[in-house]
């Protein structure tokens, strides 16, 4: 890919944040006026453990360049062990991405507590940078001709 295209590319990133910790963490990042890239779209989910692998794959199929799943730290889950399940599923998601031919780096699992606003902001900045380096998701289905890799 040429450098010119890489510079113009703005990744679309989906963040799935759990209601009890990570979404509150994102909120704290906002009210603390932490700066993080506008590439991130957040969807609030009740628990990271409810994120089925097919949701992540669907996001990537429908045009997301990266998906980051955020939950409470292990031991802090509002539902006792939802994030343990999320961790197991995240491993399965990585395997599935590889099987289906995606770059597994397009998916990331991270723990963000309600008190970690700045950490949430820097996590999003880092992940956006990783995806920017990877370039556009070649699997975007509805991509108009001439755009993308």
């Amino acid at each position, binding site marked *: 890919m040429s450098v010119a295209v890489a510079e113009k590319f703005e990744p679309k990133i989906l963040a799935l944040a759990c209601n009890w910790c990570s979404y509150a963490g994102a909120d704290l990042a906002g009210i603390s006026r932490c700066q993080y890239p506008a590439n991130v779209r957040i969807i609030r989910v009740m628990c990271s453990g409810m994120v089925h692998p*097919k949701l992540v*794959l669907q996001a990537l199929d429908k045009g997301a360049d990266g998906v980051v799943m955020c939950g409470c730290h292990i031991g802090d889950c509002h539902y006792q062990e939802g994030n343990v*399940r999320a961790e197991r599923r995240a491993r399965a998601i990585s395997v*599935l991405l590889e099987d289906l*031919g995606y770059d597994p780096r397009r998916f990331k699992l991270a723990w963000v507590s309600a008190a970690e606003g700045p950490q949430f902001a820097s996590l999003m900045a880092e992940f956006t940078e990783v995806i920017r380096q990877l370039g556009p998701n070649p699997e975007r289905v509805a991509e108009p001709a001439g755009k993308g890799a």
Partner: protein
Amino acid sequence: MAVRLAEEWFATCAGCEVSILDIGEPLLDILKQVEIVHMPILMDHKLFGQAGERAEMEIPEADVGLISGSIRNEEHRHVAEEMRRKCKVLISLGSCACHGGIPALANLGTNDDILNLAYRDTITTDRNGMPCEEIPPLTDRVYALHEVVAVDMILPGCPTTPEMLAGALTALLEGKEYKLSTKSVCDDCPLQREKKVLSTVKRRLEGPRFTPGRPLSEMQCLMEQGYLCLGPVTRGGCGGSERVPRCIRAYMTCEGCFGPLSTKVNPMVDMVGALATVGIEAEQILDRNATLNRFSGAGRLRPVGKR
């Protein structure tokens, strides 16, 4: 007036045609009302005239068209389009036509990979080059019938069951609607589930536990015994009026031949997701793409590492 029936077959083993024969006695009643106008496996009817004198392909008009097999080359595509034009109702017969079936496992490689394996790279093969004269070119991948032409009804299964086939044909003759099961194989499965969490997947050769002669309802769920069973992600109904799924009757795991309940889902994703939730690592399942999409590869399997 007899109902006119046309049948075609593409990339298939003809097992579904044997299923037609397997209908048994009800077939005699069906045949009284049916006039077969085109069926290559049964009668000599050439597509371009008996001596190849026609310039255009010709399949007679028919009320019902049955097509088994997936689309593997341009000839299949061409015949499928002609069948669609000439048949009022078009039915996908068997898993190959419905979901790609076994031939769609070829979608795990590119056409070049396959041709190289078949004609060049295998050690026991003389390198004679690829055949290219007077044969139709391969399509870019294996397609299910509905990906190429509009299909009115699907009858999945490898092979499809005679009971379903007879039911569907009878319903059509009587002008009634025929509905497939919208439940999974597990809904029809009589085995005992105890909701045990497992951690390992066994090889099937280890042999599921059961007591010969005892009813199936006393046998423990094969998944709970540690054998990979595709029942949860597979359309039910293969048991017909007996309900008990065909493979379960033989103390075997479901292989997923009826395919998923919707064209939009990928059984591999659903199955790996479900197994991860109960604590089975996806890595334990070997060759996941082919194992979990064995009969439903059209539109789902792709060359790995090629995107």
